[in-house]
């Protein structure tokens, strides 16, 4: 089975999604409620992805200290909040994960 046509369809839909408001919006402003709601989109969506990747392990939520990724992510969050540095956050987060994994 060839996946290429399927990826092409998925890619076109993704492109259409990214283009949607850029193509539709003229010069007029947004309704105020939509404008206020938009501010919360990135924190909401990205936080949801983070939690799915970090908290849900092997198909079930894992909130205990046994979840190595949760510990490393908590440290990375602290680094991100204090330093605002992507470089430090990712490198300290990965280093923390590898360190804790090697200790277990």
């Amino acid at each position: 089975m060839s996946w290429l046509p399927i990826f092409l369809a998925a890619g076109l839909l993704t492109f259409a999604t990214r283009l949607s408001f850029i193509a539709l919006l003229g010069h007029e402003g947004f309704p105020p409620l939509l404008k206020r709601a938009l501010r919360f989109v990135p924190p909401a969506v990205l936080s949801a992805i983070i939690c799915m990747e970090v908290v849900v392990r092997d198909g079930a939520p894992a909130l205990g200290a046994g979840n190595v990724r949760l510990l490393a992510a908590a440290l990375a969050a602290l680094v991100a909040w204090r330093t605002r540095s992507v470089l430090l956050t990712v490198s300290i987060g990965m280093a923390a994960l590898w360190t804790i994994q090697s200790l277990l």
Partner: protein
Amino acid sequence: MSTFPGRRGELLAGCKDELPLLLGVVPFGMIYGVLALDSGLGPLASQAMSSVIFAGSAQFVVTQLVRESAPALVVVATVFVVNLRHALYSASVAPYVSHLPLRWKLSLAYLLTDEAYAVAGSRYARDAGVAAPSPYRHWYFLGAGFTLWASWQLSTAAGVFLGAQVPRSWSLDFSLALTFIAIVFPTLRDLATAAAALGAGVVAVLAFGLPYKLGLIVAAAAGILAGLAVERWRA
């Protein structure tokens, strides 16, 4: 009269500001390449997905669906749902690109990923208090987007090339979550934004069992409502 950096200056500034994000993106691109081959896709299809879909988290899910031989419609619908958040990025940048010619709108839309939005979006936010912002800001957006695009293609190729030589125990897929943590946490400066992130995070965990990553959309909606509610309550 203030002087702006020209087109070239804006383009290079956009490239430069995107660089720190590559530390998370490049390992994730490599691990995607490895997983794509692992799922049974050929090298060509694996690489093609990176340019036609060009969305890390969606491509990651697709490799899982390919492994399960999911029907075509399920694959397309899942990618659509996982990438729906890009409509909101599109709405966020739309006012700043509305004056541009169509070829610019098409190019910037194609490049509108999480990481490009993180850089370009915060540029527009920084400019909010500026009376006369640079007329060449779209070059900054292009620089950030292109840098991300090029490194995504190259890191995918590296993953496809290296294949099984990248050990699972390196946990390189964790770099996606770390990149998003680096983007989100510095923006949590007020209660309403924190409520949006917290609400979405909690619902994402509670809704993890929903099929096709639908929990992601439900969680995002819950987070936005939480943010709006706290904002109204504080006002």
